[in-house]
């Protein structure tokens, strides 16, 4: 009955002696092509180029720009956005978005301050509690996203409002003044201290930001967990089928993001001296960090991009803002030009990538 079983494969005789040769093609070797290829392989270099171009342009336009003070000021101005950007990058890599980053940062800083001054808790403990609270808020986001399967945008839109409102209600809009903190709880201002090599002031906060970026870059590239974050953002269903605990990864990502925001909150105290519930970061931190992330080349659809790119993105925005303000006069025009330059920066990025494809 099985007369036809073997015949079908008969034509496969042709396979005998099949070549296993791999195609070899001539490679392009001109310098330009090599540069293009390198850019293609190292996407985070693209924002770097935009950055360098921006720095040079502003240096030519404004004589004060190239002073070490200016550059160190830019670094300290982006410290907070940079740390929030780390949190945002993690979330965006999983194809999510976190609108609550700024709110978590501000509320955490308020909690640290109020714990110390309202309840008399020692500052280091208050800081620990504040960090825990930030992580808990992040966890809530993650739980809603991963377990209840709500869209991240809406979850964090909700928690943004909730946390910000809680922040005002809890603090009764009271600012804790810088001189009081310096006197009674200097630990809160730790990240505001600085070293001054060659007379250039560099805040501890700047070192912290750089360290966080480096650590995250390592984790994302060189550990299994980092790969899972990318996989979840790339195609969550495929990741799940391939054996990634997507929900756990998501919850971890949001919790870690919350923790980073709380760290940013602590840094805010150091940088601003005081603890203020109405800090603009609460309202604008999300947009600023998302801008850094997107200019840095991380895809809002998840799974693509690098944290180092985000760092350059934050720097680009910082340089543009400072440069424009130094060159220009009217804040309204500055605002206008920053809008233009955001678009331009990304357009240049896109153009370079296309050229190298």
């Amino acid at each position, binding site marked *: *009955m099985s007369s036809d079983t073997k015949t079908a494969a008969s034509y496969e005789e042709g396979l005998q002696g099949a070549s296993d040769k791999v195609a070899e093609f001539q490679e392009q070797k001109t310098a330009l092509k090599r540069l293009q290829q390198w850019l293609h392989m190292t996407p985070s270099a693209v924002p770097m180029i935009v950055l360098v171009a921006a720095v040079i342009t502003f240096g030519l336009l404004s004589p004060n720009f190239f002073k070490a003070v200016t550059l160190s000021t830019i670094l300290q101005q982006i410290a907070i956005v940079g740390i929030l950007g780390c949190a945002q990058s993690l979330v965006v890599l999983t194809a999510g978005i976190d609108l609550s980053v700024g709110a978590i940062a501000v509320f955490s800083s308020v909690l640290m301050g109020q714990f110390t001054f309202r309840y008399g808790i020692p500052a280091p403990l208050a800081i620990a509690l504040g960090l825990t609270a930030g992580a808990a808020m992040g966890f809530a986001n993650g739980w809603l996203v991963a377990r209840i399967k709500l869209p991240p945008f809406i979850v964090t839109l909700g928690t943004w409002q909730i946390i910000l409102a809680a922040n005002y209600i809890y603090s009764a809009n009271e600012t804790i003044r810088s001189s009081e903190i310096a006197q009674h709880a200097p630990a809160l201002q730790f990240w505001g201290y600085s070293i001054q090599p060659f007379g250039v002031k560099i805040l501890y906060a700047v070192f912290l930001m750089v360290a966080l970026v480096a650590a995250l870059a390592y984790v994302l590239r060189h550990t299994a967990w980092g*790969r899972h974050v990318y996989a979840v953002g790339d195609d969550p269903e495929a990741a*799940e089928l391939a*054996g990634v605990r997507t929900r756990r990864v998501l919850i971890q990502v949001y919790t870690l993001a919350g923790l980073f925001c709380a760290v940013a909150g602590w840094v805010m105290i150091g940088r601003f001296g005081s603890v203020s519930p109405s800090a603009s970061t609460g309202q604008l931190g999300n947009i600023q960090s998302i801008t850094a992330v997107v200019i840095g080349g991380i895809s809002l659809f998840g799974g*693509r991009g690098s944290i180092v790119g985000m760092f350059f993105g934050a720097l680009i925005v910082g340089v543009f803002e400072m440069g424009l303000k130094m060159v220009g006069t009217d804040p309204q025009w500055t605002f206008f030009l920053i809008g233009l330059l955001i678009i331009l920066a990304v357009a240049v990025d896109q153009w370079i990538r296309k050229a190298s494809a």
Partner: protein
Amino acid sequence: MTQEPLLKAHGLVKRYGRVTALDQCDFDLMPGEILAVIGDNGAGKSSLIKALSGAIQPDDGQITLEGRPVRFASPLDARSHGIECVYQTLAMSPALSIADNMFMGRELRKPGIMGKWFRKLDRPAMEKFAREKLTELGLMTIQNINQTIETLSGGQRQGVAVARAAAFGSKVVILDEPTAALGVKESRRVLELIRDVRSRGIPIILISHNMPHVFEVADRIHIHRLGRRLCVIKPDDYSMSDAVAFMTGAKVPEEAATAA
């Protein structure tokens, strides 16, 4: 038949809205066998193996593995029981590299402090392993092991997925149309690989529309029709025409076959 089935399902039901993909479906896999599952498009073959591998949760019915009832909450769950599956959609992360995809969820870490404390991945080892497995499958046309999945041709992707399952399956390997997009040479390698895996004592479930392949390698053939098992036949007892006739409803199998 004296042996107990290794993997067994009884009365599986799965509904998608108004569509019923599995309708009181039964299933048995014997130890060490190659079981082919054949059926029309949309008969519910993929749904069946998704239920067996934890990718979907059936609305009703029981699954037993080695005689013990199991419930797989996720593919990872099934995998920890030694069931490895190549899905029809392949389940790969397009932006990640071949090695990353092959080791997803079971990455190798560097030995020593770097691995233990800093949890650093052992990329060279992973890449070496991935390259070996692909070479076994004859996928030499992959020019660069660090290519991302999205830059591979359809057939190359499938080859990577098959290599992954074959390399890691410990109790059951399930392949949903593994050769659909593969060339003649590559298909042949997959069939050889299937035999290899069986010779390691691991049973295989093979879904395929390629009758010659099925009749060549299968020990038993599960014929699926309209969401349920119609019958199970031995390739030696029936011709391909019979099998095709059964699965398309042109002929109705005798009682004997159904019991096989």
